[in-house]
């Protein structure tokens, strides 16, 4: 099942379904890293609201994805981690170390816009 990627202005939004295989996750990683360049995106939102399980592979892939997107000059925010998924992640010992998270899509977009403004201000200041 391929993850749909929406382009919204300067940002890309990828929305997970419940059942994602490892293959789907790796495919999403490649697609997002490529599209950040193609659309000159400044930010990526990965919406995991519908995801049933965040296991060690999913967490590792999301961390790698965020790192790759950053190397391409954009920021990633993971949104919509459900309370029971958060609970299981902590018990399992997983973290999304260094990857920004937000409660939902709205918060995530606000976070990305702020980050984009800060970046713009830094450049203008030079």
């Amino acid at each position: 099942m391929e993850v749909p990627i929406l382009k919204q202005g300067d940002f890309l939004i990828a929305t997970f379904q419940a059942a994602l295989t490892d293959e789907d996750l790796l495919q999403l990683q490649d697609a997002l890293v490529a599209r950040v360049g193609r659309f000159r995106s400044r930010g990526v939102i990965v919406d995991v609201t519908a995801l049933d399980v965040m296991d060690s592979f999913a967490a590792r892939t999301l961390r790698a994805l965020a790192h790759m997107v950053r190397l391409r000059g954009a920021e990633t925010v993971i949104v919509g981690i459900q309370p029971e998924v958060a609970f299981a992640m902590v018990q399992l010992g997983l973290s999304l170390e260094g990857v920004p998270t937000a409660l939902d899509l709205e918060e995530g977009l606000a976070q990305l816009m702020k980050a984009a403004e800060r970046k713009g201000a830094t450049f203008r200041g030079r």
Partner: protein
Amino acid sequence: MDDEIRVSIASDADIVIARQQGRALAEKLGFSATDQTIIATAISEVARNIIKFAKHGEIIVEVIAKSSIRGIRVTARDQGPGIADIQLALQDGYTTGNGLGMGLPGCKRLMDELEIKSAKGKGTTVTMKKWA
């Protein structure tokens, strides 16, 4: 639905099938949403271990009972290379592959009981229980 499910594990798609069916059984037993996710997450981890180390195997999820308490037992069985040092495999941060070494120790924290039977070259059986 039966009180027992068996999923043959041979590809990453089977990991998803096993955890979904395991969750459905947990839901049927009346486990909370959090416990359902915990059980599904633990199934995902042990099923991935099967793919990673043994290529194929089987996941069995059953309803069990201890006096008046009901629970769920997850058995992950393979005929793979086996685990040379089980104590080491249960240590946080220990990894033989490219993982984080969170798999088995993490599952032990997620579930109420976890037991490993394994010998080098003889395959591995991981049994995990969660009481309702």
